[in-house]
């Protein structure tokens, strides 16, 4: 009885607010490993935008396990989601679960990490574009010489994508001898303390020959900086990604060159809009920003909405403060006066 009344009221409300709400969809998202700084922001942006559009969000966290993710996806399907967002922990291993969703008629959007499947739509900051942005920023300050590569977790496709982007830029220069990669290491689980130990050992092996460190994210960059400080290598060109508060602070202090900032709120909103478009039966391919990713090896073509990261350097830190990503106080913590323009006001 009560339930019926509630439904009635809801329908009345729906009529009142227009036809849109009648199409209210349940959107499910399966996180790979929620326990990193950025995903909290992702979820918030996603949830806010979906609510705005009158939809509902269900989430599940696979905590870094492919098997758990498969179970999570089945659980979300069982709870009746209409659209499924997936951040694949292992983007290969997750395919069977994704296929099950597609078989059930639930459209799947690969969120942030590309899942190579013709019927999956991909939206995310393309790791390849991130890698390119990192390499370009370092090349600007250090166009030649000895590079060290601190790469992410070897099991993570995303790390390979970033690496691929980096090599797109510096590969040709390595060929012609302008740049020499004197050391490179994958980093178990992207852990900063592992990156630190690896960097220390690389400094031992290569000493002062290092001219630049192409590091794949900000967390590992903190380990690299700690290792370089001890060895007295201050101010070497160093890259990162994610726009961590600590990294932005390092950029202001001059111990990190750049971070590839993925304003994940843009991504979250974008994904929410795509889910909304699916719920309303629109043709995604006709939306602005749509493109096709082709994998010739697998013979796969899939719809993609790649987002370009923003390269943040000491020159445009203001951008992040304006976006509300960090506060001026966080950026300027411990920055000696007279060294960074942004902190002078």
């Amino acid at each position, binding site marked *: 009885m009560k339930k019926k009344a509630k439904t009635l009221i809801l329908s009345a409300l729906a009529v009142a607010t227009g036809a849109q709400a009648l199409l209210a969809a349940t959107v499910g998202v399966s996180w790979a490993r*929620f*326990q*990193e*700084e*950025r*995903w*909290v922001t992702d979820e918030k942006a996603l949830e806010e935008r979906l609510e705005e559009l009158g939809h509902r969000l269900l989430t599940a966290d696979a905590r870094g396990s492919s098997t758990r993710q498969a179970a999570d996806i089945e659980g979300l399907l069982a709870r009746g989601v209409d659209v499924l967002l997936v951040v694949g922990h292992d983007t290969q291993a997750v395919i069977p679960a994704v296929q099950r969703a597609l078989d059930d008629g639930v459209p799947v959007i690969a969120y942030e990490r590309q899942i190579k499947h013709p019927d999956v739509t991909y939206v995310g900051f393309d790791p390849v574009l991130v890698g390119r942005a990192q390499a370009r920023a370092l090349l600007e300050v250090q166009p030649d010489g000895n590079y060290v590569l601190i790469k992410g977790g*070897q099991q993570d496709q995303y790390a390979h994508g970033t690496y691929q982007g980096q090599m797109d830029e510096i590969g040709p220069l390595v060929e012609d001898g302008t740049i020499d990669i004197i*050391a490179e*290491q*994958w*980093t*178990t*689980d*992207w*852990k*900063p*303390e592992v990156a*630190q*130990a*690896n960097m*220390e*050992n*690389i*400094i*031992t*092996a290569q*000493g002062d020959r290092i001219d630049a460190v192409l590091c794949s994210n*900000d*967390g590992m960059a*903190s*380990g690299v*900086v*700690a290792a370089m*400080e*001890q*060895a*007295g*290598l*201050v101010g070497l060109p160093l890259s990162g990604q994610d726009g*961590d*508060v*600590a990294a932005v*602070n390092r950029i202001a202090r001059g111990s990190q060159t750049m971070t590839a900032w993925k304003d994940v709120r843009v991504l979250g909103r974008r994904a929410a809009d795509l889910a909304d478009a699916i719920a309303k039966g629109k043709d995604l391919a006709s939306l602005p920003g749509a493109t096709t990713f082709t994998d010739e090896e697998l013979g796969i073509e899939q719809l993609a909405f790649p987002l370009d990261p923003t390269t943040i350097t000491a020159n445009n830190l203001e951008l992040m403060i304006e976006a509300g990503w960090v506060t001026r106080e966080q950026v300027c*913590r*411990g920055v000696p006066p007279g060294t960074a323009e942004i902190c002078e006001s």
Partner: protein
Amino acid sequence: MSWHDVLRTLDPRHKRLLALGASLVVIWVVFDLLSGGLFFSPRNFYNLAVQSSTVALLTVGMVLVIITRNIDLSVGSVLGLTGMVIAILQIEVFPAAAGWNWPLTLAIGLIAGTLIGLWQGFLVAYVGIPSFVVTLAGLLIFRGLTFEISQGQTFSPFQAGYRIFGGGQQGSLGEAASWIVGGVALVVLLGALARRLRSGEASLPFTLLGGLFASALTLFMIYQFNAYDRPRTDLGYGIPSPLLLLTLAATWIGLFVNRAPVGRHVYAVGQNLEAARLVGVPVRRVVLKVFALMGLLCAVGAVITTSRLNAGTTNLGTLLELNVIAAAVIGGASLDGGRGSILGGILGAFVIQSLDTGMVLIGVSSSLRQILIGFVLIGAVWVDRIAVRRS
């Protein structure tokens, strides 16, 4: 007397220590040859000492836990949580300029670690839940809590004073102090060995071999630490603070294990709980104390790691428990309880870290490194089993 006879007269425990020391030297020499002389460079020795210290420190506690026939799977998570508590309090909560900030947060961190240890020890000893279950739950709970209180954020930088614990620029003793500390350590060490020889606890060959190895190692390490110059100076770094903390903690704990009633009780509890209880050993309090100590050591490890990284991150210390347990086992701790040595555990930690460091120096990939260390773990226990069966 031939070498063979000398070896046969050795106590099995002493034999294991000497074997570990010998393997360490072999590993070092091999990697030095493979890396073209890099391994024995001052910088590498300094880094190796710092990198090994945290694992070795936790291994000291883990050896005791294992001797009581328990296990602690939560050490990585406890380290992560206490590190995060210190980071948030020091960087976000308390004023950044206050001089009392870092000493207070340090104290809170150490207390938090001890309380976590007491809690887990209470569940194991007084409630009777197996330690595997308690600490497996702890692994999940404390890692989750770390994330909850940090919301995934990284916190940085720490106060300058706090950074004395992580080695490097602020955390090294300097040349003169290092020689003094080294001299004191040598006197204590040789004194202890001589005392054991007199009381009959150690045989003459062990005293000679062990004393020679330990003195040579101490002098060599200090020489290396001092030869590693601070950037743009000719002043040597000297002994890194993490190694000093490890030495102090291990000596202190070792004294209790060897010279206080609680040490015998720890071994008794692990060997035969019921018998120990019947003769009047306070078995539950012993287990409680061991877990509390483990928690405290996790907190000290957190201080070293965060101070060194100059950041508190959510995944700090993940999978650390595996390295720590591996080091304890390589060092001769038996998962059946009742057997294990602190010094062995420390040597085990150095063996693991030396392998890892050496392989990075010669450019071996991380996956191959894991495989090799896995095999070394099996190999160490295998050799041990053969030795036990023979004696």
